[in-house]
């Protein structure tokens, strides 16, 4: 059975001025442990779909199920959501930030902060405040905060796009390695086609106005088993890049 099932999802935003159809008839499913990416021109509904999968709001039509349970009806389903910026709470220490989810879910566990910091490759900075850390370090803390609640699925909405290139490459490797280690299912939204190829098992290409699932690409086996950094250097990487790039170009016209 599939781990995640999105079926017949439509979503329209209503405002006084207009009704914007953001998603039209989205059907897709993802297996346990799989890493997939959503790519497509800006405004094609990627963030909307991710928010719906996260259970932040209900789609106008359609259902989203994780292991057979509807994401809106089940409050216990834990979902990890990472945004473009870290959104660490500036008045909380790093430790308090990491354990925030556990505190809210009443599963407090203080020793987890130092373990997670180690896992995401940071020195012991538990007692520091977010402002004392660099952008790349803060995004690592945000990853630790997301992983602390042991989510069933990770949703990553352009989490690397605000970072400098070097931090971005390092974080890609870290996230990819950690997700494999914990055998987590993940969905990555990205603007960076190369990142999508280097990190994913499958890539979903969306077309805009209204947002539709346009095409799905399988990433070849030989790239999947490499780290994202190594994948960027592999020969099959550039041929897949060319292929998807042409599709993207045709969509943007």
């Amino acid at each position, binding site marked *: 059975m599939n781990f995640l099932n999105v079926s017949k999802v439509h979503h329209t935003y209503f405002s006084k001025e207009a009704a914007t159809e953001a998603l039209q008839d989205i059907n897709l499913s993802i297996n346990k442990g799989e890493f997939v990416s959503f790519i497509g021109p800006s405004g094609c509904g990627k963030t909307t779909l991710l928010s719906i999968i996260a259970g932040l709001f209900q789609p106008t039509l359609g259902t989203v199920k994780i292991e057979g349970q509807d994401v809106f009806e089940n409050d216990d389903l834990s*979902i990890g959501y990472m945004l473009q910026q870290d959104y660490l709470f500036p*008045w909380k220490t790093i430790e308090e930030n990491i354990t925030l989810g556990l505190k*809210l879910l009443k599963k407090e566990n203080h020793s987890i902060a130092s373990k997670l910091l180690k896992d995401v490759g940071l020195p012991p900075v538990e007692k520091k405040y977010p402002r004392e850390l660099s952008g790349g370090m803060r995004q690592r803390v945000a990853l630790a905060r997301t992983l602390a609640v042991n989510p069933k699925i990770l949703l990553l909405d352009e989490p690397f796009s605000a970072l400098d290139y070097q931090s971005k490459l390092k974080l890609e490797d870290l996230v990819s390695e950690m997700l494999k280690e914990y055998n987590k299912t993940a969905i990555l939204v990205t603007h960076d086609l190369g990142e999508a190829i280097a990190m994913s098992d499958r890539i979903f290409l969306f077309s805009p106005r209204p947002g539709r699932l346009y095409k799905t690409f399988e990433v070849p086996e030989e790239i999947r088993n490499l780290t994202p950094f190594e994948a960027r250097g592999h020969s099959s990487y550039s041929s897949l890049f060319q292929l998807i790039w042409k599709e993207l170009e045709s969509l943007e016209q």
Partner: protein
Amino acid sequence: MNNNKLHQQFIASLVKEKRWVRFYQLLILIAFFSLWEIASSNRWIDPLIFSSPSKVYTLFIDNIADGTLFTHISYTLFETVLGFIIGTLLGTILAAILWWSPFLSKVLDPYLVILNAMPKVALGPILIVAMGPGMGSIITMGAIISVIISTIVIYTSFKNVDANYLKVLQTFNATRLQMFKEAILPASFPTIISTLKVNVGLSWVGVIVGEFLVSSKGLGYLIIYGFQVFNFNLVLMSLLIIAVFATIMYQLVELLEKKLIKNE
């Protein structure tokens, strides 16, 4: 020259500058009081109206000695501090209720505008008739003058908290109460502190006007009494005491600010 030496020079220049600032501040203070004294004794200004530092000082010592001043000061201080705390607390609670219910906030919006525009001290006579001419109505004056503006300012800050913080909390299945506690309130602490600073001044206004009207105790009463019996030594002494305590209160709020806001 090495870095260490340069750093020490830099610090020395800072210290030196600070000393000069303090020097001029003190100079202004001394100049003000000496000029006041000289102008009064040479009758450049009418000593009956503008008094003089020496007369104010003599009166101050006398009133301290007979113990009356202490009572007046403690009444006014108590009323002001309480009015100030109630005003800010009530403002924060009202803002929280408005944040909780967007519908209610839409309904109440025009009324907040009207209440804010209205000069609250004009309510004084009604308050005194309704609540009796005592401490209760004076404290209410001190609070009422700041509550609406605090509500509006704090509510605006609640609304402007970045929605992505709430998104993060929502993914952890946070309730609305938890969102308020974890994000909305702490993110608005800087705004609440700055309303506190404004409210220090406002509650002094409310309390002094209240004491004018009730006319039985307190520094506001001393001012109005001094005015009625044409004793301007008393008026000026009360004014100076108010200036000192209002400043102390403001400094305490700044101290609180430093303790509460760690992230800047």
